[in-house]
């Protein structure tokens, strides 16, 4: 189970989450997004970048609420809400966006 990009293979688990979060790069993110049938817009990237920054500091993805607040700050209330995040990432902003951001899947009752 691996992504292939420019002759390099990147191992992932059964669900497509990168085995090694350090190998992530933007091109790889685009490839993972494509496999999820998503085209990365500016708003998609905003979420991914926020997740990566947050992860670097806290070693976990942020609560949905925290992510919503960050989006509101960047794009205003129209895009700063849970529903909008689901239009960006239909399988859930935490799980799907984490996958594209190269981060581990949030586990538990979430």
């Amino acid at each position: 189970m691996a992504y292939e990009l420019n002759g390099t293979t990147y191992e992932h688990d059964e669900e497509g989450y990168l085995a090694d979060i350090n190998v992530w790069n933007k091109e790889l993110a685009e490839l993972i997004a494509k496999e999820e049938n998503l085209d990365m817009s500016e708003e998609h990237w905003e979420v991914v970048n926020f997740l990566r920054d947050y992860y670097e500091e806290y070693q976990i993805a942020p609560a949905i609420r925290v992510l919503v607040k960050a989006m509101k700050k960047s794009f205003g209330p129209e895009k700063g809400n849970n529903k909008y995040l689901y239009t960006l990432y239909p399988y859930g902003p935490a799980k799907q966006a984490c996958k594209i951001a190269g981060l581990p899947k949030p586990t538990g009752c979430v």
Partner: protein
Amino acid sequence: MSEAATVEQPLSVEDFYDATVLPDPCEIPVIEPGAMADSKPYEAAPEFQKALGFPGELVDDWHEKAIAKLGELVEGSRALRVYLDTCVKCGACTDKCHYFLGTGDPNNMPVARQDLLRQVYRKHFTVAGKYFPWLVGARDLDEEVLDQWYSYFHQCSQCRRCSVYCPYGIDTAEVSMAAREIMATVGKGQKYCNEIIGKVETIGNNLGLQKKALVATLEDLEEDIEDETGVAVKIPVDKKGADILLVTPSADFFAEPHIDGLIGYAKVFHQTGASWTISSYASEAANFGLFIGSNENMREVALRIRTAAQDLGVKRIIFGECGHAWRVAYSFLNTLAGPFDFLDQNYPVPQHICEYTYDQIEAGKIKFDKSANDHIRLTFHDSCNVARGSRMGDTPGGQFEIPRTIIRASCNHFFDMAPDTIKESTFCCGGGGGLLTDDLIELRKKGAQPRMRALQQVAQDHGVTHMAAICAICKTQFAKVMPDYGFDMDAILSVHQLVSNAIILDDAKTDQPEAGDGDNAQPAAAQ
């Protein structure tokens, strides 16, 4: 043609029924043998298995090991032995399982699913099965059977609805737990549960949320509450000497609508002047050790709560909205991690947040502006482990009435779903028992069907717009599957979210002395 032809025709009988009669939640489906035979969760990787004391992968002598483990289990539990011996195939359970109703797969009739294990038990542990296997439906555990176990014992959410209808009271959940325990023991564990249990045992919660992130999240939440209400409601972490330790599912720190429930608990504690804290060491109510049938792992998770309570010097433990956690807490906590003689015995050990809030309402300590929930027409989903595995308060049925009393106190428009789908007959959300994982999404959607049909009925009959629950699994599951049944994902609410919306907060109640804290017993002595 008469003039009547120009008048709008009444609906035909067929159209009338099509338009107004929704399918019965309990409607028996057409049988589809093998429909779900391919439904299987991912197996746990060696690292997740080993961390819990199980072999990394399927061991070579798995057959012998599995039979030996089954022998050990029936020797150690007379109850399990009775469940395996006593079924007479009366059929009362056949149409009681939400997974059978949703999938039509006959192996999801509880009797058939149990028989996957029972046939092996008969073969090895009964005289008739040893010598005349063909007469009593005995069969050895071969690869095909093991495969069926892995598939179908992960299509039981251990909700125990079938047990309510079984004339012998056979507890199917125990059979599923035994099968899962045997599989984990021979190296065939489930990824979702085992990875999560490992995180609780190392980090303290299902999410893997470290203290730094927990504190940041809760500080952020405090700011939000103050911005919204003008009141400095606190959510303390690791506060030594607090009276109450709140143990809540870590989903309450992360997901929607769970986090709105957490805000509700905090507001209730604030308004009643309670001294409370969350522990970063035991920052999880959930105990997936139950789901995989592993007493050892269940104990290890439970012991963290004991350790946290002692380290922080609390007098009481209160559990947040989490279904199976409350079953483990109410029914097993003392056996697993007791005695809790260091806690204040004037209060229930442990207590449910709904019991706490209910007592405060009864004592007149909290008041509501119910109009704050007037945009909501509500129904309530009884979570299976609360409904059938525990109780609240000190009267029978308290686990049904206490949440409903809180709802009625905070919300003007409340309507119950059909009687055969609530209280002790409640349907599982479709994601309980360790099945709330993306690799089982098809099963989860199908398993939600009976509950969703009951909801569609009250939506049609009473204009119900939202459903509340007191279980993190139920909330996540419904948020995920509701859009498939015509509801918004935010139509699922936390019970304490309704409390949060409607509670009337006074100013400056935080950190006051405990004099005001007096739910159903004497106030705890001051330190």
